[in-house]
């Protein structure tokens, strides 16, 4: 359990959770920019745009953290995944680029969404596309259809397209679309806050249904993974994720926005934790174990030393960032 490769797997999970919980919400901001509706649609877009501004780059670094941790600690697994998942990863990457660039151009172009419809379009489309492609890639990695022949990863050309992975893509979008409005309830007030509350509740319902449907699909399509997901002790994580999800809905209903925000982040973290725990003890389900994919122990020890020193520097800086921009971040641009 406490073997170095398992701890390194934990570091990957930590990076994924941080990326989903923070970076995911930024993509969700883009999704709700596209879905903004009602009499305050423009205000919804503006407030989302301003909330994303100061934090998205920092949040984005978690993705780099995940990729780097993968190739440092699990080079064999990384090599295999990035060989066979070329297409969805390229799509995600294009989305990441256009999202970031469109946001920066809009922002530093000195004009907001209304004035540059083209940049706004690019921003929203790529905010939808990226989490979808990532969801597809992440779920495709557990299908067990990636085989290793003499250390070389092989898979059917379109193996990453199936009901399970497509639903995984939609869940990726769902996670982002779920977090953004709930976080926004803390950053807005009045009718706008009400708008985000309703959107958060709707997205919560949708995400709950999607993840619930994914379980039988997984049982049909990827039985090995599904078996682990529903076996002791991973199943408790799944149940806990569901409990957190329901609690978030209740908190939103009761207007307890601060708690709802934390609870929603917990829901997403537990969902991902359950997913990753069901891969254990493998890296590639049924093909390559964590230990088999892992780098030499010296590397893992050095990695954890870097992680420790890095965390000591990172945590206070992150707290300063979110403390400074956690509240009404509209102030600087108005």
């Amino acid at each position: 359990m406490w073997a170095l490769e398992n701890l390194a797997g934990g570091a990957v999970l930590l990076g994924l959770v941080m990326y989903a919980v923070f970076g995911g919400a930024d993509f969700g901001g883009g999704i709700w920019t596209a879905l903004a509706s009602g009499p305050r649609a423009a205000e919804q877009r503006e407030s989302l745009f301003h909330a994303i501004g100061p934090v998205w780059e920092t949040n984005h670094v978690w993705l780099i953290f995940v990729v780097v941790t993968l190739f440092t600690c699990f080079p064999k697994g990384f090599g295999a995944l990035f060989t066979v998942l070329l297409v969805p990863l390229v799509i995600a990457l294009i989305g990441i680029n256009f999202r970031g660039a469109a946001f920066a151009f809009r922002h530093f172009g000195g004009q907001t969404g209304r004035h540059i419809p083209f940049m706004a379009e690019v921003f929203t489309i790529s905010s939808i596309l990226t989490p979808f492609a990532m969801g597809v890639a992440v779920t495709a990695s557990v299908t067990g259809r990636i085989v290793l022949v003499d250390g070389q990863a092989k898979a059917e050309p379109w193996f990453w397209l199936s009901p399970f992975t497509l639903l995984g893509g939609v869940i990726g979008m769902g996670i982002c679309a779920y977090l953004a409005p709930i976080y926004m309830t803390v950053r807005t007030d009045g009718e706008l806050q009400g708008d985000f509350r309703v959107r958060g509740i709707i997205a919560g319902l949708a995400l709950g249904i999607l993840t619930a449907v994914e379980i039988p699909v997984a049982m049909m399509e990827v039985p090995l993974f599904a078996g682990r997901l529903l076996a002791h002790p991973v199943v408790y994580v799944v149940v806990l994720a569901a409990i957190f999800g329901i609690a978030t809905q209740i908190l939103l209903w009761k207007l307890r926005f601060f708690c709802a925000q934390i609870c929603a982040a917990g829901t997403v973290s537990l969902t991902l934790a359950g997913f990753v725990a069901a891969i254990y003890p493998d890296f590639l389900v049924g093909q390559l174990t964590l230990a088999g994919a892992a780098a030499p122990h010296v590397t893992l020890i050095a990695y954890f030393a870097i992680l420790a020193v890095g965390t000591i520097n990172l945590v206070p800086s992150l707290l300063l960032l979110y403390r400074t921009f956690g509240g009404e971040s509209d102030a600087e641009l108005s």
Partner: protein
Amino acid sequence: MSPVVAARALMGISLGFHIIYSTIGIGLPLLLMIAEWRSLKTGDELYHELARRWIRTAGVLFAIGAVSGTILSFELGFLWPRFMVFSGPIIGLAFSMEGFAFFIEAIFLALYIYGAQKLSRWVQFFCTIPITVASAASGVIVISANAWMNTPAGFTIANGILVDVHPLQAFANPAWAHEAVHGTLAAYVATGFAIAGVSASALLRGRDREANKLALTLSLAVASVCLPLMLISGDWAATTLAVQQKPKLAAMEALFTTTRGAPLVIAGWPDPASGKVLYGIEIPRMLSFLAHRDLDAIVEGLDAFPPGNSPDPRIVHPFFDLMVGSSFIMIGAAAWFWWLRWRCREVPQGKWLLRTLLFASPFGMIALESGWLVTEFGRQPWIAQGHMRVADGVTTQTGIGLVLFIFLIVYLALTAGLLWLLLRPPSAGTGMETKQEVPHVGT
């Protein structure tokens, strides 16, 4: 197109693109820090205004740098998975450290850019310190990975398996120190000259004289301090190469045959068929002196290495000359500026000087890009010198040519967007610019 060619082209284009943004991402924070410091120290608001004016550029370029850096980290996986399986446990550690430096940079840049109205001026200045330090550190750290490809160290391979990894030895591999120093200085020079060019261009059009005079002085001061250090570190790099990376040095200097008292060849076209450099200017025995501090020293030529194991001088030597030539163009332009500055006791604004500075302004970046090409082309055919060939590191996946084509479009779109953004005047009322443009009367 063969997968290796497509993968190399894509990696090369991505890095060439990323280098521009990361260079400015290293250089600009230093200028911001100095400007904010001077502003607090002298009470001259113009310095602070100058810094706030650079923010738009810094913000956009940093964002593009962040996403283009992500492209690179993905490409390591989908273009070079076999290389990463081999080297990930070693150079991955450098990337892990760089990741944390990148976090610090992103966080404090956000605080600095967006916190203008929430943070005091002193806190704003303090924010520029971690940005400057972290951006320089991220460059220094990631260069360790590149240096490792040139001089792999800190591991043993037994039966095709990586054993006996020494992370510190690998990190501080032989080529790291000179590459890191030379590369970081190059970033300051390139940014200094880029900003000097922008200021010179504005002065030529008579725009905003006071601010641009200040910007010109500040950026050229940084560049001019670094330029002589560039030459010294370049010499250090050359003498180190003469011991550690002999094939690269031979290709850089287009030395085909091992020679005692080897000449330095400036310019010219290396012709492998005849083993001669056509149209080159020869300085007798100079290469032996530069490489070994001895006019009669033996310098190994390309013939000293087995065929197929050394780089093609036709793509190394010209870029090396371009790099060295660029630095002399910049030294000339900077020297002229400081000479007039000293003579007139005023920031000189002669048309021809400003035009010269404008002409010299891209050469910092040109030098940096060519230096990078020299180190990469000069390592061929190896991806990790002596251990793995480029062709053995590439992906087994098909369709890389198509991926190359797609990313060409992505880069064209990003470049077009950037040019569109940076070349048009900033619009008012964004809160991102200086409060109110103070009308400056031309002097």
